[in-house]
């Protein structure tokens, strides 16, 4: 599946308090969380986002708390993909579990600028930057995680395991 949208670029060590501050964690509703997404970075930040746009970030995106509300907020805000230099560990697992597409590109993130028109092919691990004409290749999804994705994410995987147990 490919995703095409405008890049919104943020910096290094964007923490989960920036993605969704704790005061908004009194709900599990994706739309409500999405409406307050990135409110801890800059009030009203999310108003620049059109559904289908792509988040681009520096190193250690999603550091801090384990709140699954962070990937849910990003998805709820209409950002289906995050391309980052690297991800914090808990956020990376959470992203996969919530069906948020995460691509780790290392230093190549410097070639993806704010406002650029990006096309992401998650399976091929490829990002085409239509603004510059460049292509960035990503790390492939680890095999075990691909298995979980194939089972419909962790919920589907656990469901199948539980069903097998009877």
């Amino acid at each position, binding site marked *: 599946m490919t995703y095409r949208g405008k890049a919104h670029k943020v910096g290094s060590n964007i923490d989960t308090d920036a993605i969704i501050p704790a005061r908004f964690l009194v709900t599990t509703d994706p739309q409500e969380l999405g409406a307050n997404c990135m409110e801890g970075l800059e009030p009203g930040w999310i108003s620049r986002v059109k559904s289908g746009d792509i988040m681009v970030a520096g190193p250690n995106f999603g550091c801090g708390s384990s709140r699954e509300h962070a990937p*849910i907020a990003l998805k709820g805000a209409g950002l289906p993909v995050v391309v980052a230099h690297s991800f914090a560990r*808990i956020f990376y697992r959470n992203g996969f579990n919530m069906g948020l597409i995460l691509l780790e590109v290392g230093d190549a993130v410097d070639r993806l600028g704010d406002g650029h028109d990006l096309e992401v092919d998650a399976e091929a691990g490829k990002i085409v930057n239509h603004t510059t004409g460049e292509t960035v290749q990503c790390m492939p999804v680890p095999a075990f995680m691909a298995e979980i994705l194939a089972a419909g994410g962790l919920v589907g995987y656990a469901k199948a395991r539980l069903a097998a147990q009877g």
Partner: protein
Amino acid sequence: MPFTVAEKILQAHSPEEVKGPGQIVRCTVDMVLANDITAPLAIKSFAAMGAQKVFHTNKVALVCDHFTPNKDIASAEQVRVVREFAQKMGVTHYYEGGDCGVEHALLPETGMVGPGDVVVGADSHTCTYGGLGAFATGMGSTDVAAAMALGETWFKVPPTIKVQIDGELPEYVGAKDLILELIGRIGVAGALYKALEFAGSTVSALSVEGRMTMANMAIEAGGKAGLFTADQKAMDYAKAAGHANPRSFAADPGAAYERVVAIDAGDMSPRVACPHLPENVKPVAEVGQVPIRQAVVGSCTNGRIEDLREAAAVLKGRKVAKGVRLIVLPATPRIWRQAMDEGLFTTFLDAGAVVGPPTCGPCLGGHMGILAAGEVCVATTNRNFKGRMGSLDSFVYLAGPAVAAASAVAGQIIHPAAL
């Protein structure tokens, strides 16, 4: 093959042969944890998985500690969801109200977690139990829901960074200063996806509580776990707490470490992490003149009895500066009672501090100590991200209890010896 502590504990919980870093292994879990913020999402995922029951009614802990005592209607509704789930599933370890404390202080002191356990929790500071010699790590709600249903989870075996700390701690220097020093050196992504393993004479001399303070902040370096080998002290602590089956795992000679970081503790002075990242660490003397509006002593990092004693020792016979709020939150009811029985509350109240209930409250900007624009807080908590404790235009400095208490007295960040 010689193993690190992380590899040994994972091997003891997996039928697969552990071969080394990068390998994915499935492990059984000894305790699964969620709180009032993360459990509601876990319960949603649990239902979506079609799960009918938790894998073990004694091995799931639901601790409502973040927004409790419930700060508003929405948080009360979330706690209700958790309570009803706990009742329906017959979960033994459900906490709210007078038996509830900050989860990472409550679980060790009641023997729910201990040496050699594998623990997963929907809270990033689950790594605290590494101080006891457990492989413990934070995950999201859905991972935790799967662990609640299946009694197992998967891990990528982490590479390990060994942190060798030797030397005798100078006065006013403690566990918090050691972990801040490490984070300052390796950075907030310095241990990304990795385990930290602590060793050395300083670490051996530390109390189990101090070790938990250090393991607690492994996540602030991006780490998956912060591990100590359970020595006699840790085994005694776990047995006294009522843990049924503590097991000690030590690294093998020749175990493979990605790198070794050596710290000379004898040379250290108290450390402070300046806004807005835990890696902005300086000796307290180099922070400059920073007037404060609030000081907080508490949290899963520094809300234990030793921390309260350390703060009280500095506050004894002194007054909190005019215009400064000092908020003291003992982390559990047991710690609260102990502090009361030891007379620490008299010291706190005489100094002009506020003593509150056990709660995570202000640490995450939840309640009971929120900052307005321009306000500066020195806190014994674990994160100083922008806006973490309130306004996006507020400032949080992280320090140990002695520095926090001294700063409350001075009205600015200060070395306790300079009072």
